[in-house]
């Protein structure tokens, strides 16, 4: 039958011999690395090429880029306040990278960058590092008050402080896990329905029924495009909300 496992698409394999070792772990150029390189090139092309010939009456790609940029700008200013304007390049970079990673994964045969939790954890960790650095640079040691909201009575402080601390440091994990699980679930769903189509289509007289899961699969691909954009948007919204903690202490 030659059926593939639905999670086979997430396997990482070396594309060349390992280049060097780091503490016993061979570091090689994998299909994951290749996908990241492609995504970075796509992101650069998406933000650089449309504005090389800027015009008052924008072309199609410039309209698209401006629309995404404006959505990010208004979202950031609303979620993190007007003082967050200098962080717009950072937020827009994250948005572009995640969106391109999600969309590239929808093309059959390409690897989904955001379906690896370690890659998402690096992005989410960089967000939290930026939040921490901003907080400590702007407020100094006063930033520790973010773990103790004002108005909390003194006798509750020993309870509130650990809870707030855990909820702060679990943020990168929840951010990366959300993106990872969404991409994983979506792609497994696509593969399961594709396998169902293949299994029914090769089963003799009932083969014509196989067109039903195929139709459903087309609809799911459309839904996955929506999810790809939505997850990039949610990632940047939550990053902006976390940034607000560092910029405006509560």
């Amino acid at each position: 039958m030659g059926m593939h496992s639905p999670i086979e698409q997430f396997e990482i394999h070396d594309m060349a011999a390992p280049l060097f070792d780091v503490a016993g772990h061979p570091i090689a150029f994998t299909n994951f690395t290749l996908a990241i390189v492609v995504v970075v090139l796509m992101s650069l092309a998406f933000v650089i090429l449309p504005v090389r010939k800027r015009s008052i009456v924008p072309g199609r790609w410039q309209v698209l880029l401006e629309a995404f940029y404006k959505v990010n700008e208004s979202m950031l200013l609303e979620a993190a306040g007007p003082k967050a304007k200098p962080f717009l390049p950072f937020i827009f970079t994250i948005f572009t990278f995640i969106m391109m990673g999600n969309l590239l994964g929808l093309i059959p045969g390409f690897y989904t960058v955001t379906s690896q939790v370690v890659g998402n954890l690096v992005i989410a960790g960089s967000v939290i590092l930026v939040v921490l650095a901003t907080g400590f640079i702007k407020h100094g040691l006063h930033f520790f008050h973010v773990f103790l909201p004002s108005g909390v009575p003194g006798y509750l402080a020993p309870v509130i402080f650990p809870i707030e601390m855990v909820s702060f440091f679990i943020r990168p994990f929840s951010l990366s896990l959300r993106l990872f699980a969404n991409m994983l679930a979506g792609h497994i769903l696509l593969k399961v329905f594709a396998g169902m189509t293949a299994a029914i289509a090769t089963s003799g007289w009932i083969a014509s029924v196989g067109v039903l899961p195929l139709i459903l699969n087309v609809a799911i691909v459309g839904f996955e495009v929506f999810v790809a954009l939505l997850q990039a948007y949610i990632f940047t919204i939550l990053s902006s909300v976390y940034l607000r903690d560092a910029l405006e202490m509560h």
Partner: protein
Amino acid sequence: MEDSALKFVGVGITMLGGAIGAGYGISNVFQAWMGAIARNPSADAKLRMVGFIGFAGTELVLLMSFVVAALLIFAV
């Protein structure tokens, strides 16, 4: 019953709880969101962000149970 069979029963129970809870939660989020926009259509832009944050927080519950289920199948 074999151990591996019980494992899949556990996966089913995990996803059952996650799906019921998150289904109820997400329906609540969107119900309140639509109701708010219907009552005050001019607040649409302001409500959009809050709605997505609520959706993301609720969805996380389902994803956590999904991750636990996936770990049960592939890692345990």
